[in-house]
């Protein structure tokens, strides 16, 4: 069903606008997936524990983060 007005129907190449957006997103998505697959498990574990660091200087020093 032709639901709405014919606004913008005649703009040249309008149909590509969303497609370009989708391509940009998919590229980014693929890059991110590749990246997290290659990310070391140790790094990921370290980062996932960041909130658990207490306000304690000694613990902070012992943390993996500061041993890089």
């Amino acid at each position, binding site marked *: 069903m032709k*639901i709405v*007005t014919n606004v*913008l129907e005649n703009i040249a190449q309008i149909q590509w606008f*969303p497609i370009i957006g989708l391509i940009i997103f998919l590229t980014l998505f693929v890059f991110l997936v590749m990246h997290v697959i290659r990310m070391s498990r140790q790094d990921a574990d370290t*980062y996932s524990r*960041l*909130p*658990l660091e207490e306000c304690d*200087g000694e613990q902070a*020093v012992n943390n993996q983060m500061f041993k890089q």
Partner: protein
Amino acid sequence: MELQKFTYENRITRLFMNATILWGIVGMLVGLIIALELIFPHMSQNIPWLSFGRLRPLHTNAVIFAFVGNGMFAGIYYSTPRLLKTPMFSELLGKIHFWGWQLIIVAAAITLPLGYTVGKEYAELEWPIDIAIALIWVVFGINLIMTTIKRRTKHIYVAIWFYIATFVTVAVLHIVNSIAIPVSFLKSYPVYAGIQDALVQWWYGHNAVAFFLTTPYLGLMYYFVPKAANRPIYSYKLSIIHFWALIFLYIWAGPHHLLYSALPDWAQALGVVFSVMLIAPSWGGMINGLLTLRGAWDKVRESPVLKMFVVGITAYGMATFEGPMLSLKSVNAISHFTDWTIAHVHIGALGWNGMITFGMLYWMFPKLYNTKLFSVKLANAHFWLATTGMLFFAIPLYFAGFTQSLMWKQFTEEGYLAYPNFIETVVQILPMYYIRAFGGALYITGVILMIYNLIKTAGIGKFVSSEDDEAPALHTHKHEVDKGHRIIEGKPVLFTILTLVAILIGGIVEFVPMFMVKSNVPTIASVQPYTPLELQGRDIYLREGCYVCHSQMIRPFRSEVERYGEYSKAGEAVYDHPFQYGSKRTGPDLAREGVKGGPIYKPDSWHYNHFLDPQKMVAQSIMPPYPWLITRDLDISSTPKKIRVMQSLGVPYPEGYAEKANDDLLKQANQIAQGLRDGGIEVEDTKEVIALIAYIQRLGTDIKKTE
């Protein structure tokens, strides 16, 4: 390795915590009042600033920007320094941020009930307050970004990414949507009109949900859930994908608020596709939050904090599944304009934002007062009151939405509307409104218990205004060569810029075609600017918040065309600054209200009596009376300025018309008032009601002129 000593400042956090509690109870109480006003329409006692149309924007603004806003800032000011091993960049900026934000809230709480509004949902505040919001938001942003720059940790944790995305995107949304030309100190007209205004507004509205109610709270989830469960987050890898996918996709989804409207097909399709895709990153967040509790589920039984987090995250999962479903056109055809939407947003507000805020407060208060929670029992009672309250609130409204929509669409065997009188569909769902109010009351009772519990907790403890910590300086870290995402995780400014780029892409794709081809919006020759009297009447329509209960958008369904008249065209609203399509039909659609011979046309005298006493005209109506419209004089001194501003926005009034506008206004007012007087109604030409009747009777008539 030399350790640097520093302190975390807790005073600003405490201020924001207290503010979220105070404004939370205020916002929720106003919500309860308006829920009751729908059951008892005379409850406002003919006091203008207590009427539903004025209090509903106060409720939404208070809950979103005051309750959730202060809640988010409390969590951000607590977690950011601890995650970055540094105090916040500036205590002074923190204070300016806090007091500035509270002043804005107070300004909103005064102006909205007084009827000072732009008339755009969730963006009602007038231009001076909008400017203040932008300035205070920048103060917050500087404080946040500068703190990340002077951090002592190499890595910036995922919670901070969400905070940065919140800052960047809300700034863009607020500025783009709020551009307006002032008429006076508290009156302005948005620069956009009609369908363009609708697109910008719902791009803003949807992303206010995304970047004010969702991303900051995901950040809080990523900090406070691991803290409360004493478990690392489930998957850091998942958080990377889910963060970027979420911020990239969310920004495109706004047009799903305008399905079946006069918005171009391609924009509607775009909104639907991206909304459906949004399920994946949203559930990525939910899964990451819930599975953080793996191995710690036994703690959930004992800890009210974790209980609240679990229900909050579950509500987030439910709402973010439901949202994409509602964006499917076939579902939206049923749900839109009904109480289904109200139920949906309250799963988000009461469940996600409410529960996360409460859990966070129950966790932070004992921490900041260096004591135990006064009563775990009371907190558990709060949890159950909140959970059952939420269900009592939402489930009846799902029934109400479904019931009413099906009644709107029901035809008899002979092909007539089965319920041609709108009020029949209202009466049917009134019992649901009673249960909703009960649910809301339960929820608020829980909040009152929390307030008592937290005050007692503060009483038995001693406030820790600052906490010492130490960490090595950032430059002492050995530098490895960063790869991939790690590069930007360590560079906050680059990260901020990339976030900005991600959210701008969707916006540009949506807006550029709509704005570049302004001339292509099919203009309808017979559509003319409003007369000065109609323009003044329209401003009264905005002031009274009529749009919160009445839509002006007839969708192209047989049931709607039959009930209201010909479906709405984009070209009809080209002079509507702002658009008034609306999002809810507590009362009938008004897009063709003025079409003589149309299905819902009423004479001037009917409108006069209806504004004075709605129940006199429709016995079972739930509309409140507006007697002040009858007695108040219309302020016509503003007419020339209003016409000039409209001219500057491209509305084609003849040159020099501003000075003559009031002559036409008085003439038209006299005609309407004389008509009423002829019918036995004693009314003066210059009363506000005359202008509002003029506007109402203009609605939808333009395209009929050619026929």
